[in-house]
């Protein structure tokens, strides 16, 4: 019993020395298990201590499961990888997938109208593959391709769009509804900063045209 008690505390000591939270929890679980064993081996097992330590053990096991799930590599689909390379270079795959899950992938046939000038828009769009034509007042029409945002005026200012946009080729876009996207970004400051950064780059490029 005494040996098990010392081994458990030595394991706790080691767990405090490691920096990685997963290893810390793993070693703590080993320590906790050994401590429980020492309690069971004692002539009069201390029931309250056993119950508390069992609770700690369960919490740690749940957190370990979550940590392993979070660290598991996540394969990106072809379109997701395309956007990762083109727009969201700084995002980890899991973050990108979370962001993309707030929206949906939508396909448009050539000629389909995506945005009508003056009509309020409810979605932020990002061109995944294909070409779209943007027709602005008193300016020559421009064509936009993979990795370009559509509907950012509405998303950023709440104003109706100032241009017409139509698909030129078969067009695949990610379509994020404004409200859930704003809510998601408010809850995820790092992703919010990334989204602002890519929207800023997109706008700066459009201002240079």
């Amino acid at each position, binding site marked *: 019993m005494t040996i098990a008690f010392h081994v458990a505390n030595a394991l706790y000591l080691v767990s405090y020395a490691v920096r990685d939270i997963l290893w810390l929890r793993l070693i703590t679980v080993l320590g906790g298990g050994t401590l429980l064993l020492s309690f069971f081996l004692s002539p009069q097992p201390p029931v309250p201590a056993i119950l508390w330590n069992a609770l700690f053990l369960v919490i740690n096991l749940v957190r370990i499961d979550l940590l392993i799930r979070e660290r598991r590599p996540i394969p990106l689909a072809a379109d997701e990888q395309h956007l990762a390379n083109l727009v969201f270079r700084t995002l980890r795959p899991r973050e990108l997938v979370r962001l993309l899950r707030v929206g949906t992938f939508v396909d448009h046939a050539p000629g389909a109208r995506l945005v009508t000038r003056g009509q309020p828009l409810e979605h932020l769009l990002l061109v995944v593959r294909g070409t779209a034509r943007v027709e602005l007042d008193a300016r020559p029409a421009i064509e936009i391709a993979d990795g370009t945002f559509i509907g950012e005026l509405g998303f950023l200012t709440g104003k109706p769009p*100032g241009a017409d946009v139509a698909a030129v080729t078969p067009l695949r876009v990610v379509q994020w509804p404004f409200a859930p996207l704003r809510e998601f970004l408010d809850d995820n400051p790092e992703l919010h900063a990334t989204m*602002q*950064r890519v929207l*800023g780059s997109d*706008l*700066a490029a459009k201002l240079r045209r």
Partner: protein
Amino acid sequence: MICEAGDWLRATSRRLELPATARIAQRSRDILDAVDVGSPVPEALARASVLDAAGDGHALGEAWAAADAIVIFVRHFACAGCSDHLAELRPRLAELAALATGVVIVGSGTVEQLAAFVAVQQLAGHPIEVVTDPTLAAYRAAGLERSRLGTLGPRALANLGLLALRGHTSGRACGDLYQQGGTLYVRRGGELAFVHRSTRIGDHAPVAQVVALALAARADEAGVA
């Protein structure tokens, strides 16, 4: 170092006796009512003279004469909350520069303390201007609070503890210890688009919020869908 951590509380207790304190607070409240989002910045704020690192005077309004400007008033140059604010802002400076939005930090210490602040906060080389307003004229014109509670109150002290856990500690006051900070977003030409007036240590406008204003302004100009 010019602003060393030390017996700043003793210095504070001496300042508490200054008879001007109450008068300044009253004047601040008077001007506060005149500063509203959507209206032009008050003339007193645009004309307020601030000193650059060389000690030369400039009208603060020069900051928004040619481009949008984010004007951040720090409490003082050794403030823990302001250090935390800058840690959040620093990675976004290049992005704001690309959005043609200037960033100006206004402190209230001496020119030497300004230089020390730039060095400690590693701001050299970043697209940012740092100036100082030792007379607090710009602070008053912006309607920013001057409050003992904001510096020494329980919530302020609790925030100091939290800031220390994040690695930001206050040094000896390099400027007015009771002056609270704030953030303004001023559109090119002088329209006030956003104002946040801090009420205590550690209370600052989220950087994402002012970046969003810069993005919105550029989206308007870009003529996008």
